[in-house]
């Protein structure tokens, strides 16, 4: 058997030290990436893709209508005004839809925001495609100014028939102090 030392005790101890270092590394190099990969791949946890969706089919399923609700909230003490322009839309699966969200920075400082989306029910996440979303990038806004942030989405034709309502929730985070322009590993 593989030995790290001629002395049996030192051999056992060295192997165990190696195991504990490996387990420490396991957290960072396996658990964290694996978690993100699994959440993305399985569409669980309400996470949507962080890449813009390239529409494949243009066939629209007019036989059913899906209600898409928009919910916004501000994280912690984020002072911006943040709301959807319409509270809900009725859409057909396969059709491209446009809407805008309204953001207002009422403070006297320029700030940067990041919106994090979540889909409920989480089963619907993999069928909700965003072809364009303000959440793909950080949103800078000057002091005392407001903006309209676009969202373009398609509900997949393959959406399970028992899902009739999808809620898209955005939480707006203040990321002014954080590293700018880092590609956010989300949604």
């Amino acid at each position: 058997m593989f030995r790290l030392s001629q002395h049996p005790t030192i051999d056992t101890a060295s192997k165990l030290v190696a195991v504990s270092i490996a387990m420490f590394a396991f957290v960072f190099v396996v658990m964290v990436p694996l978690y993100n990969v699994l959440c993305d791949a399985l569409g669980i946890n309400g996470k949507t893709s962080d890449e813009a969706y390239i529409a494949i089919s243009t066939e629209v399923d007019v036989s059913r209508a899906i209600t898409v609700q928009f919910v916004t909230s501000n994280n912690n003490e984020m002072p911006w005004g943040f709301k959807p322009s319409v509270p809900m839309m009725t859409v057909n699966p396969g059709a491209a839809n446009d809407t805008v969200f309204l953001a207002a920075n009422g403070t006297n400082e320029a700030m940067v925001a990041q919106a994090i989306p979540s889909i409920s029910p989480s089963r619907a996440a993999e069928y909700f495609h965003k072809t364009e979303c303000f959440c793909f990038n950080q949103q800078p806004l000057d002091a005392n100014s407001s903006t309209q942030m676009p969202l373009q989405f398609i509900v997949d034709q393959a959406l399970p028939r028992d899902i009739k309502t999808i809620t898209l929730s955005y939480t707006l985070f203040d990321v002014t102090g954080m590293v700018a322009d880092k590609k956010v590993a989300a949604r």
Partner: protein
Amino acid sequence: MGAHHGPAKGMSRWLLTTNHKDIGTMYLWFSFAMFILGGAFAMVIRAELFQPGMQLVEPGFFNQMTTLHGLVMVFGAIMPSFVGLANWMIPMMIGAPDMALPRMNNWSFWILPPSFLMLASTLFMEGGAPAFGWTFYAPLSTTYAPPSVTFFIFAIHILGVSSIMGSINIIATVMNMRAPGMSYMKMPLFVWTWLITAFLLVAVMPVLAGAVTMMLMDIHFGTSFFSAAGGGDPVLFQHVFWFFGHPEVYIIILPAFGVVSQIIPAFSRKPLFGYASMVYATASIALLSFIVWAHHMYTVGMPVAGELFFMYATMLIAVPTGVKVFNWITTMWRGALSFETPMLFCLGFLVLFTLGGFTGLMLSIAPADFQYHDTYFVVAHFHYVMVAGAVFSMTAAVYYWIPKWTGRMYSESMGRIHFWVSFIGFNIAFFPQHFVGLAGMPRRIPDYSLQFADFNMMSSIGAFIYGASQLLFLYNVIVTIVAGEKVGEDKIWDGAEGLEWTVPCPAPYHTFEVPPKIDAVSAHA
């Protein structure tokens, strides 16, 4: 000091010692001090909950108490107490002269007191001690944490290193230092359970260190492991924490199983029933502990397939645990039973731990857990397995082996009073918590609805009784050490088996410098 002399004199004996018995003694006293400290925190909690409304402390301080009570009891009292027991007993049980790595043994003990000093000192810092619960979920423990969280993180790092070193030492001792003829399947079950526990520790303490390191980086170095704003996810914290946390609960309970498996046969005057199945059951529990962690987080929004997997895997653990419980009962069947204090505590363990196991099965049912989650039902459950499981068996171990350690007999009548006061106090304290939990009383809240008032007052009274009974225990131990009746024979309990009963009482400073001969009698059965 040479190997063949007695202990050095004065403080340097304790500071510089590499003797497994000295180090075991220090671990035991340290863990008892932490038990009293953590108990004092619990008394504050129960005093506040004595009546509804805000009575004694601020809600923020109440949260600090629940947090520190959990941390101190798990990492300061229960874990070091079993490490102390392992230090004292494993070399004597396998016929080894000492632990395999005696200098590291000294170090792994002596970094513990500074770690807990640092943790306790956070109470006096600006912003107060950590107040986010012993499970320190992010973002409570990152974004919303008091500044003292950094000290908490460092304390966890140090005690983690201590545990890992202690475990490496135990594994190295058991694998390399057994007396000739002491094959693995002849080892006493306490040694077996500790060997498996030590492997669990080496595997999961680094995961805990990883979790707190990620917290540290999120707080101070601008990473976003647990912050959604930067692309992280707070739910990830729960996965990492419980990947450590679930094996951790078996780390706490497996050595307790080992103790009970030594004591019940001794007072039944029969060999342990199903020795081999006990070993395999222990190993199965340890392996299963790695695939059930998410049963602590059914309510985070997992897919149904995930809930079902973790539910069935959790229920599966009841099988090897049941094997153990039935083996203990069968060991007693038709035995010549006697009910000295160690046996009483083991029987208390058996009854109450089984009750805690049943409530664990209730909690494992995913749809039902949505009702029980974060209520006092959970508090009742884990106190039945932690206190009546680990602490009762640890107490049994002290009564069982203290004549061997000190050469003096404890007061049997005081021991029995301690047992009955503990047993009754414990049940008055924790049984009503099942009812208020099922009725919806949330845990970690300093105030509650009026309908829970009677049961909470009962629970507080029981907790005070249980707490006071531990002072009786301390008194009994001190009286034993200074004035206990000297014992003459090596084997104090007529039904006891094992190598530790072949050395004199008190055990000499050095034992088994010449390896003992292992025959059928001195082995486990």
